């Protein structure tokens, strides 16, 4: 039976004043806690974006629990298999054979042969120096009709080099075969959610006559393969950049990083760079800016001085969003994040100087298990973790920016905040769903 060994948890330093925070790591690293707000995507969700793809995890059974549950919750068990590693595999040194034969066995049992398999190896392969080059060479030789993506479920590397999230986003696009370049096609890559049709980015691309491909919209593997022909890969999420660089190196596709952001000047700069890459005139931002001002003013008229909390799962730019809202009269009281996005240094400095009393809360510090999760007064949260930790049912239920982008994204965000403020949600049931917005979870 578990026994509490300390009656009282010291919660005095749970929050850090933004004015006192260090950049980019405001909290000490240590034991971590996982809150029940589980909407953020994991590697299983992202890899499921490959149409008709099949995932195989090679790992000790105990460590497979999380990914198995994710696949089960997605009702995607038919696209997911495991190879369980036992001690004898380490002692016998047959790890390479185990993977190859295991995959062959799985393939023999699948009712339909998948066009692509994403093979996730794990920490143990890393520790013992499993010859993965040999494994993939043999797999490709033995199953020439199947594409294999080299993926990693390697928590010990979580804080060095590319993160598992970045690695998976990169691995997914290694499945693209070289193709003749199509100067009329562009991709948005590395995002988990489709970018809104009404967004500045999609509208500009479509209005210029380009075909826009996005894995989130592909329904077949053949359709996904069409992405290999696009001459340009656009990324809007920081975690997608490694994928774009890898494709530039391997397929020669140009890359353009135009990050999801909330500062007007940066939005204009992104639009200018996009227009330049597409060789089309850059649109005048004035009408869009005016629409934003109007939308934000309308939202403020409803939300008023109600405290606002933002978390990092809602957007990769929580500081940027906080700054936008604060500059437009909203009362952003707290931000939930564990580390700052390196791209937010300017916003960090601005907020530190102008709004030093904003409270920063970590989401993974064990102390967060014990904090009072009831804000006491009505509070509007942007993001599931902010909703969970403040105990509010008034929240914008989005992850990774929710597909919103540019000035249109700000207008939509203002609308969603108003909607969330006016209509209570069932936070408890909503935030328990893993991989919010993942098509397979519906």
């Amino acid at each position: 039976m578990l026994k509490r060994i300390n009656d009282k948890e010291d919660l005095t330093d749970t929050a850090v004043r933004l004015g006192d925070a260090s950049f980019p790591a405001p909290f000490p690293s240590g034991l971590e806690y996982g809150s029940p707000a589980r909407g953020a995507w994991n590697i299983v969700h992202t890899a499921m974006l490959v149409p008709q793809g099949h995932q195989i995890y090679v790992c000790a059974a105990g460590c497979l629990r999380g990914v198995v549950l994710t696949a089960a919750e997605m009702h995607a068990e038919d696209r997911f298999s495991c190879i369980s590693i036992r001690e004898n595999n380490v002692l016998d040194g047959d790890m390479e054979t185990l993977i190859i034969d295991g995959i062959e066995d799985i393939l023999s049992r699948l009712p339909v042969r998948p066009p692509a398999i994403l093979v996730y190896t794990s920490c143990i392969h890393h520790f013992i120096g499993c010859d993965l080059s040999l494994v993939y060479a043999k797999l490709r030789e033995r199953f020439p009709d199947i594409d294999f993506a080299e993926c990693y479920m390697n928590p010990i590397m979580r804080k060095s080099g590319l993160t598992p999230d970045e690695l998976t986003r990169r691995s997914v696009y290694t499945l693209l075969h070289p193709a003749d370049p199509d100067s009329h096609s562009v991709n948005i890559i590395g995002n988990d959610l489709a970018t809104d049709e009404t967004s500045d980015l999609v509208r500009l691309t479509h209005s210029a006559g380009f075909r826009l491909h996005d894995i989130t919209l592909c329904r077949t593997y053949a359709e996904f393969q069409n992405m290999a022909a696009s001459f340009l890969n656009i990324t809007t999420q920081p975690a997608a950049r490694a994928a774009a660089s890898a494709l530039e190196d391997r397929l020669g596709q140009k890359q353009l990083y135009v990050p999801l952001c909330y500062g007007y000047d940066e939005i204009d700069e992104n639009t200018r760079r996009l227009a330049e890459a597409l060789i089309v005139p850059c649109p005048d931002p004035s009408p869009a800016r005016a629409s934003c001002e109007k939308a934000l003013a309308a939202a403020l008229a409803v939300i008023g001085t109600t405290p606002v909390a933002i978390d990092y799962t809602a957007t990769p730019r929580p500081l940027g969003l906080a700054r936008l809202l604060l500059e437009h009269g909203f009362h952003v009281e707290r931000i939930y994040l564990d580390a700052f996005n390196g791209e937010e240094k300017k916003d960090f400095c601005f907020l530190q100087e102008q709004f030093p009393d904003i409270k920063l809360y970590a989401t993974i510090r064990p102390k967060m298990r014990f904090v009072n999760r009831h804000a006491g007064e009505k509070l509007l949260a942007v993001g599931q973790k902010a909703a969970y930790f403040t105990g509010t049912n008034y929240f914008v239920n989005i992850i990774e920016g929710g597909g919103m982008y540019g000035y249109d994204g700000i207008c939509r965000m203002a609308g969603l905040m108003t909607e969330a403020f006016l209509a209570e949600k069932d936070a408890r049931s909503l935030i328990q769903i893993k991989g919010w917005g993942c098509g397979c979870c519906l």
Partner: protein
Amino acid sequence: MIKLAVYGKGGIGKSTTVSNLSAAYADRGYRVMQIGCDPKADSTISLHGCDHMTTVLDLVRSRKDDFTLDEMVKIGCKGVVCVEAGGPTPGLGCAGRGIIAALEKLKEKGAYDVYKPDIVLYDVLGDVVCGGFSMPMRTGYADKVFIITSGENMALHAAANIAMAVENFRDRGYAQLGGIILNRRDVKREDEKVAELSEDIHSSVIGSLSRSSTVQDAEELGKTVIEAFPDSDMAKEYRMLAAAVYKAACGKEW
């Protein structure tokens, strides 16, 4: 680029032999890189003459990925590019994992592309006791494995074990056995015993080295025999061995 891995029982004289081979190749005008794959990090000491060399794992531990290729190497005598993989704290950690990490880091930092060595020599610790120690045999690393042994039984057992590892990996396309190097300890029936081993493992003795005090004299000076006593008989033996290894590795005269 010719890539060679030299294995053998601990204390058999691998580092001394490999360093003299490196010096002999460099003398001959080849660009040489010597990579010590021993946690003690003393493979290249007679080439660069420093008591301590920062190892790849030292850098990985202290700086994660924030270091340059230049910081991973030291240029030794005759321009030999010296690298020490390093290892964990003695008694702790995993030495095999250390070698894997170091060799991967070298590749990742483009060591072979930047220095463009003609000859790369991996000096590998003792037996092939785990996957980490077989790393230099893998595709992309050494093409040929050479085993150093004396006529002592323990050295012969280790050599047989190494040969078995090479054989086990044959269908994987890993490095092939290039031959046996006899480093004499002047034990009874030494030539005969090593010849028997060679036959058992379907290989051959490609060269031998005499037991000579010149080697210890050079070591006292912190140098290779090639550098310290270039006209000695021992230097001649190392040059002959270098030529034999070169031929066994690529089929050409050096």
